[in-house]
């Protein structure tokens, strides 16, 4: 299905005819599948074939993008020609010829979703169901879903870039509902991987993960409402990293920085965080959930140190936004599919290890909230104000973890919270997420060690302490 080199070159040539200075063809063929189980029974099974081609032309700060499901050369040349009509210059940039295709192969997959049997996938889901359901009698319902896809992309551009790679992702969603006396609470785990099924068969114990979802639902069922107010919050490792992703990561993407719309504009090489904070966005981690060989403009993914000892070192920059900034592209361009033109996005983003331990941080906190598990969140990059939900929380009292509390959310400001991180542990771990933004919904990894924010607004239903 993927296009021949000669056709790609012809499309690029057509695209540049009216003065464009950059042209790109993005071809995607994706095979995806999903299986949904409710109460341990398979209710739905769906397979999907995605195929499309996106053509992008840039002319200084302007860009045009179009896509189609057709791989007929005539249709594609017409699309390139239609798009080029947005510019009325004469030919200025001559495309470099495409050389040998470069094949990305850093992230090895042993048991591909394309070969692992449907029945074996179902077995995996049922195993997770059983472990969660049998955890406790208050577990009333368990839904386990599987999503998997293998995306094959091919990118060719007027600078002679010509690359292809195959990207595999598999994720399980385990949703446990605990109920008693008409009250219901949920627990959720969503392990995922950029490997094949070997991850679920060897690397992790799916039953332990499922039991954890059930444990969380049960804990929250018997938890009291969270008190509200300003207090210290200890945010645990793994998915706790969503705090940096939302509060700061989005504001470091060129999408907002290039337009001067971020609170971090003009702050490069300045202190923007407490000196114990080092934050990294690394798209090269082997088989990472947010990793790839190439970004979606065809340039190698990179490891980007964003903040080092509190000093802002780099933004995340894509090719076109780099034209508005005094900053090289950082291989950060990503998109959900051919239906989106790419822009700067995070990959695997995490705060690096500190020198404290988990126990030291809890012991040093007289009263506060321990956010053991975070839900999702969002940020307004213009003001930097963010929010996120705490899905499993506990009160810390006299330096000890005390009773569980539910329904908490945290609100704050991205630029301010970085200054308020006053303790960081040495237990860095990462977790999987899906990030929705300008170029669609993409797999993004978040991570951090356990850390403490000295004061932040905690919202809860119980009211002030």
């Amino acid at each position: 299905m993927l296009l021949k080199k000669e056709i790609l070159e012809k499309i690029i040539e057509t695209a540049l005819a009216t003065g464009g200075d950059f042209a790109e063809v993005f071809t995607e063929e994706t095979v995806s599948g999903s299986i949904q189980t409710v109460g341990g029974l398979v209710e739905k099974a769906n397979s999907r074939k995605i195929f499309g081609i996106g053509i992008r032309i840039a002319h200084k700060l302007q860009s045009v993008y179009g896509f189609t499901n057709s791989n007929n050369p005539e249709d594609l040349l017409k699309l390139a020609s239609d798009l080029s009509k947005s510019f009325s210059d004469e030919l200025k940039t001559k495309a470099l010829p495409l050389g040998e295709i470069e094949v990305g192969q850093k992230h090895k997959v042993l048991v591909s979703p394309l070969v692992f049997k449907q029945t074996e996938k179902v077995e995996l889901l049922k195993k997770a169901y059983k472990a969660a359901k049998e955890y406790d009698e208050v577990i009333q319902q368990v839904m386990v879903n599987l999503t998997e896809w293998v995306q094959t992309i091919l990118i060719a551009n007027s600078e002679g870039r010509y690359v292809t790679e195959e990207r595999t992702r598999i994720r399980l969603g385990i949703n446990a509902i605990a109920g008693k006396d008409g009250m219901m609470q949920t627990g959720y785990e969503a392990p995922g991987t950029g490997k094949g099924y070997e991850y679920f068969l060897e690397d992790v114990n799916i039953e332990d993960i499922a039991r954890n979802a059930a444990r969380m639902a049960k804990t929250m069922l018997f938890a009291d409402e969270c008190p509200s107010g300003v207090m210290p919050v200890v945010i645990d490792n793994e998915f706790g990293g969503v705090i940096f992703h939302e509060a700061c990561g989005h504001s470091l993407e060129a999408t907002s920085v290039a337009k001067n719309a971020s609170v971090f504009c003009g702050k490069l090489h300045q202190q923007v965080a407490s000196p114990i904070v080092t934050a990294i966005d690394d798209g090269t981690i082997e088989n990472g959930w947010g990793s790839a060989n190439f970004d979606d403009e065809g340039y190698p993914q990179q490891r980007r140190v964003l903040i080092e000892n509190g000093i802002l070192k780099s933004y995340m920059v894509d090719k076109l936004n780099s034209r508005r900034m005094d900053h090289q592209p950082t291989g950060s361009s990503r998109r959900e599919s051919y239906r989106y033109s790419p822009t700067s996005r995070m990959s695997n983003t995490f705060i690096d290890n500190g020198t404290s331990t988990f126990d030291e941080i809890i012991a040093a906190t007289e009263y506060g909230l321990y956010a053991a598990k975070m839900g999702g969140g969002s940020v307004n990059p213009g003001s930097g104000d963010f929010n996120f939900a705490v899905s499993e929380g506990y009160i810390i009292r006299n330096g000890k973890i005390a009773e569980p509390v539910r329904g908490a959310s945290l609100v704050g400001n991205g630029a301010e919270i970085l200054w308020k991180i006053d303790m960081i542990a040495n237990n860095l771990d990462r977790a999987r997420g899906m990030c929705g933004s300008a170029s669609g919904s993409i797999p993004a990894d978040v991570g951090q060690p356990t850390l403490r924010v000295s004061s932040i607004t905690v919202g809860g239903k119980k009211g002030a302490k």
Partner: protein
Amino acid sequence: MFIEKLFEKAIKAGISDVQVFLNNMNELSIEVFDGQLEKYEISDSSSMVIRGIYQGKMGTYSTEIMDESLIDTIVNTIIESAKIIDSPDEAMIYAGDKEYKELNDLYNEELKTMDVSKKIEKVKNLDALFHAADPRVSIVETMYAEQTKTVMLQNTKGLKLFNKVNSSMLGGQVIVKNETDQRTGFDLLITNDFNDYNNEELSRKVVEDAVKTLGAKPIPSGNYEIVFDRDAFGILLSAFSGIFSAEAVHKGASLLKGKLGSTIGSSHVTLVDDPFMKKSSRSRSFDDEGVATKYKELVKEGVLTTFLHNLNTAKKDQVTSTGNGFGGTVSAVNLALLPGNHSKDELIKMIKNGIYVTDVQGAHAGANSVSGDFSLQAMGFVVKEGVIGAPVALITVAGNFIKMLQDIEALGNDTKTGYYGITCPSVKVGPMVVAGL
């Protein structure tokens, strides 16, 4: 041709009934930044969902290529996926209803054929008005998006249905700045009549509202009476719209389980699903299963009157499908909270000590549709004795969705369809828990 061949091969392979659902989208989007056309996107794309019953179970395959060489793969994959289904649910392909509503006014040819340059001019004009509206406006992003959606359903029971709708939206986001603060404002209008766009009014409102929030600060935690602006309330309704699905109820994943016929809201609350709503690109005369859509009251004067059904959930509950089978699951088409008769100002005047909430954030994570609990970041203004005061930010408003529906005291008459596809007015509710300082 593709469809006929697919049906033929599927039946031959032992699939008893087959249905295809074809979705074609023709899209245009325009973005202007700093007075310049920054982004221009066009596309024409299709996708097809094929469902087939094999040995009583439903297999599904979706594809974006309708190439005859793919037919064998489609048939085999449908059989393979049907084989792993072990839920006892009955698989059904629908023979059709007697009548389907005519939806002629949902497609406006004029909008589709209007010269692109006029649309670009309109966006540039809005961009210029944003910039000119106030010296504190620092950054503006203005956009226009238009789509024409054609859906077609055909099955081996002889049903063949077709809908065509188009719509567009125009709007923008501004960042306003003073010496000490930076805030944003955003709004857009969705319509399929280009004449509805009023750039002067839109730009003035967005900038005025944004400027008013400069200097917004948290307020002390406590219980406050709340008026939700229509946009903010639409976000809340959207976060909880899934609880009306009978599928969620059957799974035990809706807090409305067992509440049919009981009072779940105050007498002011009448919530409807209107699949024929004008100027909505979501409107349809049939659902993805081929069932005729219908206007229905989900909640009438506070009483829960029906859940939303597809063929499967209806069969389980021994009712008829409400025509809400979309995307393999159950969802509302155009959810609308019917308006009351107060102006927004009157609602605000009812507040003794409270907050006029203009925006809530984080509904995708901070709202739990199983428990009904929510705790959301909010922005707005302090209101004392009916008078709007200082701007408020970085607070959370927490509650339970059902409790909040019961605490609705009055509704505005300023109904609007928001970005999330929910139509509602501004709403006055009793005291809620606010976390701030």
